[in-house]
């Protein structure tokens, strides 16, 4: 469950936007990726801030952390240890070396033809990249359509958007930064 923090001048707006965000995340099947959400809604000032913290952010994972690499004649043999990364690893290898040189021998065994071990071990995968793009989409779906002036702040596992209608003020930006820092602070 996503932990919500709501702040604003209208209770109905806060409750309904919490419900909307829950439904949007559920609709996109990413509810389990969000740990915390904070909403600040002040319709009288035309201010809308939404900040989301991603769960289990581990940053980029090197390939040698995900799979065991063994150098063989004519290429590199990989045995995947963390199955969750298998599809992404295979897709990355296909993208880099082409389907003809990357053979999936069994579900968790891959042979990369003509590529030395050190080259494969230098690779790393960023699992959060896709999540971040989905989160951004969810936040854009949530934000009221009329609030077109938007600023985004993002770090590894927290993403904050501040939106207003006319001009972005320094106060709004400062408040968004404060919210963002607070969300990171909780993560540290």
């Amino acid at each position: 469950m996503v932990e919500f923090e709501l702040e604003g001048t209208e209770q109905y707006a806060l409750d309904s936007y919490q419900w909307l965000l829950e439904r949007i995340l559920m609709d996109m099947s990413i509810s389990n990726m969000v740990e915390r959400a904070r909403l600040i809604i002040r319709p009288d000032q035309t201010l809308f801030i939404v900040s989301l913290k991603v769960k289990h952010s581990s940053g980029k994972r090197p390939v040698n952390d995900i799979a065991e690499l063994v150098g063989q004649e004519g290429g590199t043999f990989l045995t995947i240890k963390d199955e969750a990364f298998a599809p992404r690893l295979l897709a990355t290898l296909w993208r880099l070396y082409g389907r003809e040189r990357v053979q999936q021998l069994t579900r968790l065994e891959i042979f990369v033809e003509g590529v030395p071990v050190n080259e494969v071990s230098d690779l790393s995968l960023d699992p959060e990249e896709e999540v971040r793009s989905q989160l951004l989409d969810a936040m854009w779906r949530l934000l009221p359509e009329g609030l077109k002036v938007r600023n985004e702040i993002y770090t590894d596992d927290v993403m904050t958007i501040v939106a207003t209608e006319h001009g972005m003020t320094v106060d709004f930006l400062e408040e968004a930064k404060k919210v963002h820092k607070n969300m990171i602070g909780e993560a540290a």
Partner: protein
Amino acid sequence: MYEVLMYDGGVHKVEQLYELIEDVGGFILQKTQVQVMITITMAIPAEDRPLIEAKTAELGGKVVEVPLAGTEIAVIGPTLGRHHMPHPICDIAEHLRRYGAITIVMGLARGRGRKTCQISASEKAIIEEYDAAIFMLGNFKECVTHEKIDLFKDIQIPVVTVVGPELDSLPHCEALVCGVGRKVERMRRSEEIAKLEEIADRVKEVISVRRQEIEEDPLFVHPSEVKDALDDMDAVQECLRPAPVVLHVDGLRVKIPYEKHLKELEELEVYGRKLKDIATISNCRLGDSTMIRIKTKAEVQEMYVPKVD
């Protein structure tokens, strides 16, 4: 006074019902046949309803109340963006169709936002061609009560406003329904369906008031009588658009081009009088359609009073 009803039953011996409708001086407004089942929307004199009910019972069908039949209603959202469409605007439009209304969904070009929301004169003119308008205004009380009310301030037809926050009242609208804000999924829970019912009830009330106003100075002919004459026109029979003739509370929308068929429409005979004498015929704002506003009995009689110098 005519009453609009819907027959829902089988096609077996349904010709008997057609004959009875004709005998009592009624009209068939719409027929939809699906295999052996048929629904017939009809306008009949109110006093002959027991006869129709007896016949439908004999045929094994049933008579369904369609209080919004003979109306065309616009459901309007701030924009057609995914923030407002398809839910709940389409849910409302779909629900009203169950009560016999023809509904359209409309998004304003610049209706989103708080201080920046606008409605243009042409949008207002398009909306005013309908019998009633439903405005969906969103979740922010401050925004609705201070800014969005300007969207429907000058609209000359009855307006039902649907908003999220609980409000006691709202100016410039005939009815208000609270508790329906932005949605990202279909309104299918029991409490949401109850809200759709509430919206339909408010629309029924608003249309009923409009009909009572018309009754005080009745129309020269009922729109269904004009429809009966229009149905014989070649242009209407050849029209491939769904529902080529749409009934309004005080007139009709005929989906044939105004410029091309104006003369023909003006000369159309309804109870021995030309249509141009008993109705105002004008171009439709949405193009390729013609609006017909039927004059009241008083207006038509006034035309025939000899002028004394």
